[in-house]
């Protein structure tokens, strides 16, 4: 049983999906119950991963290995380290909450809707646990399909445009990435005579720098579009805005992390020379910094509530990629923590838009104002999410942002100095949004008498709020879980670094305690 734990986590949603297919489409409540039970089960079976995880061990845990297509050297290898563990947990938790939050929101094609979500769960978990590159690629592309339908069928007015844009844009990136994967595969075969997609084996493929760079850029196409990094981000606001609430939540909380995860799991360890190459690092950091400031400024001027939140993701993900390419312990650790944090905070922000959209069916900021009088509890939850997203200490966002900033600053003073302006603009667009929607008098007649949060909405928000506070007050477990895997990656990249990027300030020795 326990040696297949990871496979169970991976296939629980899929198994639930198979059963779901046999429930007649007219039994809407039964479908809802079943989907929720499956999603909850998906979360519960992932819990033993946390308890069974040994953070003092190097390398992967819960590893399973089977041949899949022996002729091509494709295997079914799955396993997790601290980085994947956090993202898998994020997926199972957010997946459950997203499915739970859809109860009232979705009323047509209910069966298909939940089927898509469950399929997507398996796809996303697969991405985070695959240790075979082709297996990874299969899951990577698998995720596209359900999200395409979720946006395209249950989305807003411009859903078809958004869905096709999302699909084609990310597919294009994926295909370019595949070229890189194949290059790596054939390079490895040319040198060792072994055809394999296993990550561990591909790590030992000495390549010329130009080949590594080429592969890096092809990976970049796949990952940067997914993250999304500036200037490949414009599919995101459309997809987010048009998707149904739960779709936006999953998109922001989990799907985007596939891109950052790709950089951390594949680009850095597999291509350490290219990843520490001065040109590449500078380009990636520059794009991240532009993303942070640009995303925040564009966010400030949005008239559409949901689009504003979508652009804020561009800014926050800029912090994540900045942390990665700071190429040091704090930067990378902060980046992974911030990925979890962004899932929580932005997930909440999208849920908040969803709550009001269900009541009023408009996303225009100017249609609101003074909601704090009508829906005081809603206003409190929104304030909480806003503060968590703006990185207020003792909430989750601060830990990630602060650690990333420290890493960036340590790598290069100027990177830190530019990135830190993000916290000013970040506060600005959120506070202004809050003021325009929640504060002031109720000016719009239609907003009078709106019901406050119901128990189901509370049930979605409360766990997220508790999670946010727990990270903010006691982040030690996260740092502990990430310490080994991050150190390994940082060490590997820096040992291949051709020239030191910066000079350290001489620092006097101090007794650490």
């Amino acid at each position, binding site marked *: 049983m326990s040696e297949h734990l990871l496979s169970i986590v991976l296939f629980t949603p899929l198994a639930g999906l198979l059963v779901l297919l046999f429930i007649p489409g007219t039994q809407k409540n039964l479908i809802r119950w079943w989907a929720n039970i499956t999603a909850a089960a998906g979360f519960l079976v992932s819990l033993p991963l946390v308890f069974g995880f040994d953070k003092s061990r190097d390398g992967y845990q819960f590893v399973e290995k089977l041949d899949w297509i022996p002729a091509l050297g494709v295997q079914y290898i799955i396993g997790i380290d601290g980085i994947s563990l956090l993202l898998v947990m994020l997926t199972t938790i957010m997946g459950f909450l997203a499915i739970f939050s859809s109860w009232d929101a979705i009323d047509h094609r209910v069966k298909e809707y939940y089927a898509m979500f469950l399929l997507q769960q398996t796809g996303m978990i697969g991405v985070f646990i695959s240790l075979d590159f082709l297996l990874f690629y299969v899951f990577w592309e698998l995720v596209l399909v359900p999200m395409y339908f979720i946006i395209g069928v249950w989305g807003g007015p411009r859903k078809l445009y958004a869905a096709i844009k999302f699909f084609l844009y990310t597919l294009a990136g994926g295909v370019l990435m595949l070229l890189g994967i194949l290059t790596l595969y054939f390079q490895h075969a040319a040198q060792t005579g072994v055809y394999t997609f296993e990550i561990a084996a591909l790590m030992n493929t000495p390549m010329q720098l130009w080949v590594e760079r080429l592969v890096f850029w092809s990976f970049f196409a796949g990952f940067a579009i997914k993250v999304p990094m500036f200037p490949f981000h414009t599919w995101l606001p459309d997809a987010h805005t048009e998707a149904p609430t739960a779709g936006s939540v999953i998109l922001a909380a989990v799907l985007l992390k596939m891109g950052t995860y790709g950089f951390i799991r594949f680009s850095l360890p597999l291509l350490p020379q290219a990843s520490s190459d001065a040109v590449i690092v500078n380009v990636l950091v520059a794009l991240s910094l532009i993303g942070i400031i*640009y995303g925040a*400024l564009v966010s400030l001027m949005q008239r559409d509530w949901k689009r504003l939140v979508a652009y804020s993701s561009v800014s926050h993900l800029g912090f994540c990629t900045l942390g990665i390419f700071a190429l040091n312990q704090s930067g990378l650790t902060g980046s992974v923590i911030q990925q979890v944090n962004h899932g929580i905070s932005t997930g909440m922000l999208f849920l908040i838009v969803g709550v009001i959209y269900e009541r009023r069916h408009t996303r225009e900021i100017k249609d609101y104002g003074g909601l704090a009088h009508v829906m005081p509890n809603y206003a409190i939850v929104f304030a909480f999410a806003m503060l968590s997203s703006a990185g207020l200490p003792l909430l989750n966002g601060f830990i990630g942002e602060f650690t990333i900033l420290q890493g960036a600053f340590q790598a290069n003073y100027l990177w830190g100095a530019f990135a830190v302006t993000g916290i000013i603009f970040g506060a600005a667009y959120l506070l202004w949004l809050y003021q325009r929607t929640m504060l002031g008098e109720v000016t719009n007649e239609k907003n009078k008498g709106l019901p406050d949060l119901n128990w189901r909405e509370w049930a979605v928000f409360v766990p997220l709020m508790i999670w946010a506070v727990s990270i903010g007050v006691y982040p030690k477990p996260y740092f502990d879980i990430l310490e080994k895997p991050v150190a390994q990656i940082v060490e590997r990249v820096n040992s291949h670094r051709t020239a030191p990027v910066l000079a350290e300030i001489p620092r006097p020795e101090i007794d650490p305690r």
Partner: protein
Amino acid sequence: MNFLDLIWLIPFLPLIGAGIMLLFGRRLSKTAIGIISPGSVLLAFLLSLGAVIQLAGLEKREHQVVLGPWIEFLHADWGYLLDPLSSVMILVVTFVGFLIHVYAVGYMGHEHGPNHGGFYRFFGYLNLFVFFMLTLVLANNFALLFVGWEGVGLCSYLLIGFYFHKKSAGDAGNKAFIVNRIGDAAFILGMFLVFQLTGSLRFTDMNAALDGGQFSPEVAGFGILSVTALLLFIGATGKSAQAPLYVWLPDAMEGPTPVSALIHAATMVTAGVYMVARASALFVLTPDTSMIIAAVGAFTAIFAASIGLVQNDIKRVLAYSTVSQLGFMFLAAGVGAYWVAIFHLYTHAFFKALLFLGSGSVIHAMGGEQDMRRMGGLKDKIPITFRVMFVGSLAIAGIPGLAGFFSKDEILWQTWSSPIGSKALFLVGLITAAMTAFYMWRLVFMTFYGEPRMDEHTKAHIHESPPVMTYPLIVLAAGSVAAGWIGIPRLFGENNLFQALEHWLAPVFAHGAVPAAVHHHSHAVEALLMAISVAVALGGIFFARHVYLRLKEEQRPAGGALYKVLLNKWYVDELYSFLFVNGLSKGGGTVMAEFDRRFVDGGVNGTAWLTRMVSNISIWYDTWIVDGLVNLTAFFVRALSFPVRFLQTGWVQSYALVFVAGVLLAAGYYWLGR
């Protein structure tokens, strides 16, 4: 009982209060709230008192309690440090905080609306503020200090926007939060530099490294230490409302008056001064930055005072006064007199809290009116408020014997005598002192003396505040008189009681690397300067009396151009609004959003368009060229076959005809050819 190990409980007591208020407050009665909320702060005060008394008995007056790890790699724990500096701060925060809580029970008791106008919400935020403020001053490392730092900022935002139905309140809250964030950004970078320099964010580690002699004072230029110090100071200018980031504080007066007293006068805004004092080991190594601090402090002091001279809103006068007094504190810190900065912080907490609460009592009596032009003659209507305001105004003006005199005079003296200070800075301080006396007494005369200028309805309803409000005022008035007696100049005798505060704080500000400045000035000079400053203060008071009591309205000097500039606060708000709000943020945001739509997304849509275009061309090509070629071939064959079609008709008769004709032609050719 060992209070020293319980110092972590000092901030957590008000946190418990806040938790009760915010979670269950809606179900509590007003009385229960009025007991629990101030009670939690009172308990914190008593605990602080016990801890400080035990601290005094220690050999080395420094005690740390670490509850657990927080951000380990920065050596930032849930750790608390009680030393002479933090002990002064916790006593001020809890004592003044408690009095203001009690006052607020009366002041906020008249709020109408659901849940008594958010009575529980108000006290929840107020207790939360005290928690964060105590965390700020008790933290044993920069990161936890920053928790308090941001937390008090949050509470400030929440309380400024307490009347959130008013747009101006929301605006003021946003302004405060965002302007503070600008300072915070610099503060964060400064913290990272401290970490890189000393390897730890813990104050004791930092001090050990900085005092240890590895770093020599940066006398020859602007080095890394100076940059670090400057970044931290920029952080302080945000929280403590110094130029150029002072603009949020006057607007913060949108909050209820007890908030103005507690947060925007007595405690939170002094956090920057505290932080600079806390990092004094760093600042003493950077004379350049120290000079900048002194200059910024002096400039802010006189600049804000100049605006305060002409404001008509009673709370705005006090707000600019606060900015100005904070400038004095930074002037002291800048010239290296850290203990004097803390001294003034402490006396200011009493008299400024008193003045704000007193003004609240006036506003309360006037039914919400804040414009002094519609007050006047309130002296006998609200006698207690009048008397305490009178005392507070004497104290801030620097009348000998009262609290403000000792601390302000010490600042002026240190500015004169310190090697970093100068005669010019002293002069700025002196002029500011005169202006302070003038605007404060202008306030007193406009409010309490002269003819009543309010309408009849308001006049009929003027009443003294209830005891729950006046008792705290009386206690604060006593403090405004006596608080300075622990910092009496050596001029009047040297003993442990007179210089108690200086001795108490001395170990915190003793830094090995830099010997304390030795003053070469005689007591005679000090006495002379003191006489001048007293004369200047009296001059300010009498000038105000002359203008606002003796002269009739029309006799007063007409408002010239300068008056208009001052009344409009030097147009700084307009300038900032133009440059940073509408220019950088909204303008930049609009440009970026358009850029995003047209170019970045335009590029994507352009690619899609290009793909469709290529696809259309392909379709055309496929239809007309590729398929056309096939069809053309077919056509060509058909065309070629066209003539043949006429021959191959399938009729035997026509074949026979052609056959016969052919035979005849062949035969004819043969014969004729011959």
